[in-house]
């Protein structure tokens, strides 16, 4: 089936082949090459919670391949009147060829995949999975370093609530990456995830300080500490803004080290970093498009030609 609910739906070989296809589709994603592989196909963007970036990235991916997009928003629709997810998805099953779903409740993507016959792409469910984000992160790391084996990836910030880093860390250990987890004690990665990662044979180091990790890092993945995650202001104030990177911090970094961030950033990465060779977060954001193109083609069973010209 063409569903993508969690990264577990893809074998390492499938991940590799999707990333190869995504790389091949970069000129199409940029608009330099016209390749209407998905002409006549319809994507339903089912966003039960706002995420403008993810929605636009799916929309661009579909349109660059010649397909069309229906955007569904739950605000002011039958959903706000209490329609079940099951019923909403039944409707879309008849209208679209593939659906991307974003939902505040965890498990909504698997639930939808079981409810309908069209393939479902999980675009984020609660604090659960966000596999298309993970895939674009992997593409970015591959572009920077070629292979992932043996890299030291430093994950920084909110490792407790950030689903991006949970999903990414699981994927990285499958490819032999060592992880350094940098967070304040209140935002440590959950124990069950850390032990999961170790049980996969990964080397995992936990620390509170970022600066001393910089010289050994191959990737520094910054995340935003979100105010809305905290029960009270004081707890947030204690950790807000504790990790900041500026260009001067990176003088001791390896030459090929890349800084990533799922964006939007607040003050985790100073604009002075933008003009260094380490800044990869804008390329990372762009990579959402070719990655989702490759995943849409996979879901719809459409072969991407070896030569894209």
């Amino acid at each position, binding site marked *: 089936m063409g569903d993508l609910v*969690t990264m577990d739906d893809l074998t390492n070989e499938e991940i590799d082949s999707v990333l190869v296809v995504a790389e091949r589709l970069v000129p199409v994603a940029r608009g330099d090459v016209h390749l209407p592989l998905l002409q006549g196909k319809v994507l339903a963007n089912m966003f039960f919670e706002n995420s403008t970036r993810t929605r636009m990235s799916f929309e661009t991916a579909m349109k660059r391949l010649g397909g069309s997009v229906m955007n569904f928003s739950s605000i002011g629709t039958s959903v706000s009147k*209490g329609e*079940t*997810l*099951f019923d909403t998805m039944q409707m879309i099953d008849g209208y679209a060829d593939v659906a991307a779903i974003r*939902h*505040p*409740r*965890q*498990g*909504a993507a*698997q*639930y939808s995949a*079981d*409810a309908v016959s069209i393939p479902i792409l999980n675009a984020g*469910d*609660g*604090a*659960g*999975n966000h596999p298309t984000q993970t895939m674009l992160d992997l593409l970015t790391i591959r572009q920077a370093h070629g292979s992932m084996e043996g890299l030291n990836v430093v994950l920084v910030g909110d490792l407790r609530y950030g689903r991006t880093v949970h999903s990414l860390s699981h994927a990285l250990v499958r490819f032999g990456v060592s992880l350094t987890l940098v967070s304040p004690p209140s935002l440590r990665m959950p124990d*069950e995830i850390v032990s999961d990662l170790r049980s996969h044979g990964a080397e995992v180091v936990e620390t509170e300080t970022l600066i001393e990790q910089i010289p050994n890092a191959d990737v520094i993945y910054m995340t935003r500490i979100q105010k809305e995650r905290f029960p009270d202001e004081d707890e947030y104030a204690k950790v807000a803004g504790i990790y900041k990177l500026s260009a001067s911090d990176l003088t001791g970094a390896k030459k090929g080290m890349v800084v990533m961030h799922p964006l939007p950033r607040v003050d985790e990465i100073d604009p002075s970093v933008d003009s260094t060779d380490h800044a990869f977060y804008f390329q990372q954001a762009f990579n959402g498009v070719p990655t989702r193109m490759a995943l849409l083609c996979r879901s719809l069973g459409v072969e991407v030609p070896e030569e894209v010209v």
Partner: protein
Amino acid sequence: MSEMRRVTAIKNGTVVDHIPSGNALMVIRMLRIDVSRSTPVSLVMNVPSDKVGRKDVLKIEDRELSQEELDRLALIAPAASIAIIRNHAVAEKLVVDLPSDLINIASCSFSNCITKNDREPLPQRLRVISQDPLEVRCYYCGKGQEISELIDNIL
């Protein structure tokens, strides 16, 4: 079988033996036996046992439990041994089978799971990741389930 004589032998029905000590009342609940209107049920708790240290034993008169009903016990009494009694003799011996998916046996305990909306029509589905130690996760949201919480969430 001498331990079992602590309770009157039954003529017809089901004996559930080797229940971990203290879990017999939960077994009654999981089997959805309404003791206020059921056939007679007798219960011994904390019986010494060679196999499991201390155990509980449950006898249900005039009712033969099906394999499907017994499989529900996997969460709390995976090592239970079951005898179907007909005319004072053991007619059948059964064991609990832990299915790989627990469908509509207990609901997910995670508050933000999609299945928490009880109007959603798809079944509750929990996946058995490992048997020993018992590890169960929600099929939909992926959250690991505390066995004690699952017992509170029996459907």
